[in-house]
């Protein structure tokens, strides 16, 4: 029988709040930047509205490079930039920039893929009605791709949860940090277990909420 003697619930609660904060803040910026990059990727790709092979090629390589670097390495690599933006490369604030840098290219690809799913005929119909390219993006692409985009946000949120856990390595704070410091470094298995269960619950809740939204907005 496990006793949970090492578990200080107050600290767990603080760490949970940190994790939620890191995730929410980095998700927000990831959506903003990722949506922009994803739209540009889509529009500049072959046979699309702005077809620009050069722009697409360069952007695509940058996205791929960022996606290839393991998160732990990326976090350390961009420390100077992090410090420049947030004033610190430690703690909750210090982990948000690397989280955004890591998740944005991932989310951008998901956005590009969901936009590709939009029926070309609908875009053509909008153009025939006198829609500008901007109208097509705003009134057709983003609206038609809504379920796909919501699924993309869900997947990204879940990915961010696991990234926040990794940011414990650089003292990022949150549940992952707690699991690492107490569970791994001090062999307090009970603390590790509690944090892992909490992370599982968080991921479950996110996925369920995301699925419910996708279902709510599916019209096909």
């Amino acid at each position, binding site marked *: 029988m496990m006793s949970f003697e090492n578990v200080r619930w107050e600290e767990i609660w603080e760490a949970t709040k940190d994790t939620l904060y890191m995730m929410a803040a980095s998700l927000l910026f990831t959506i903003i930047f990722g949506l922009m990059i994803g739209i540009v990727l889509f529009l500049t790709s072959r046979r699309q509205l702005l077809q620009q092979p050069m722009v697409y090629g360069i952007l695509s390589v940058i996205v791929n490079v960022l996606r290839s670097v393991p998160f732990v390495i990326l976090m350390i690599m961009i420390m100077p930039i992090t410090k420049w933006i947030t004033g610190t490369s430690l703690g909750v604030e210090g982990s948000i920039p690397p989280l955004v840098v890591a998740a944005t290219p991932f989310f951008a690809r998901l956005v590009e893929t969901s936009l590709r799913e939009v029926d070309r005929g*609908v875009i053509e*119909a*909008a153009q025939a*009605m006198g*829609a*500008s390219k901007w109208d097509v993006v705003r009134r057709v692409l983003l609206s038609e791709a809504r379920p796909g985009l919501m699924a993309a946000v869900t997947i990204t949120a879940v990915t961010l949860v696991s990234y926040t856990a990794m940011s414990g390595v650089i003292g990022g704070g949150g549940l992952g940090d707690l699991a690492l410091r107490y569970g791994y470094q001090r062999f307090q298995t009970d603390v590790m277990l509690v944090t892992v269960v909490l992370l599982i619950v968080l991921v479950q809740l996110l996925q369920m909420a995301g699925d419910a939204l996708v279902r709510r907005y599916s019209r096909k």
Partner: protein
Amino acid sequence: MDDRGHTHLIELHNITKSYQVGAVSVEAVRDISLTVKRGEIFGIIGHSGAGKSTLLRCVNLLERPTSGSVKVGEVELTKLSQRQLQAQRRKIGMIFQHFNLLSMSTVRDNIAFPLKLAGLTGTAVRDRVDELLKLVQLEQHADKYPAQLSGGQKQRVGIARALAGNPDVLLCDEATSALDPQTTNSILSLLLDINAKLGITILLITHEMQVIRSICDRVAVIDKGEIVELGDVLHVFLKPEHPVTRDFVDQVSDTSAASVLLEKRQGRLLRVTYVGELTYEPILYNAVKQTPVQFVILQGTVSRMKQTPYGQLIVELLGEDLEIDNVVAALRKEGLEVDTL
């Protein structure tokens, strides 16, 4: 009406559209010139791959022709900037084979789409949408999503959306090809109605002769990127000249057995064509009843083209040559067209 600008609504001059496929350039449309008169329903018929879809898309420049000019109304579209072109496209409605509705928007929002693009808001949009819903008889379905509608209903939404900006022209891209025959007829009669009541000129493309026969005034037959025959539907239908045209006419009037009849003939084989009120007169009987000539009807069609009744019979006349000549003369005198086969 000597002012060309008023009688001709669409003018295509020397339109060529070529695509680069690998190292070779393929011409989908080759030097086509065409004019559509204000108020008419003009059909372009061709097999798939003949270039009709490309030609239609050249009218609102969804496809920019490689060379040639496009004029709709008073405006030469091929000379406009992108922004000016967007404004002009609002005067050109278009409907599609697969409807191309916004799947995430309700019927009401789909119809409102072009109005909002044009900058309208609030009650102005709502009132116009209500009017259009009534026109296409979809009042009860305003808040449904396209996935909840039948094919015919979806096309009605497409039509309402295309008419929202009070266009001068409606372009129809195989608008009935995805529909069953009954629904096709209801959509065609809606198009006829729109043409008659709102005076909107319609340019349609199809591969179904039935569509041409039911609603078009004039038809162009397109094959391998070129127009091979063009004229009044009635004329093209009754006297098809190009082999491709004959293929299409055979779709609806089964005259393919004519060669068999020729081999079996005993007397003189005639093709008798009549149009309009003559269709209902007993002319053939009257012409032979005073003579010893007998007749056999070997094949025949009596039908309607748009509002005009017409018929075409293949008749064998048996008797003396001289007597037969008299009968033929009598038929011609009554206004029938008679050809010896």
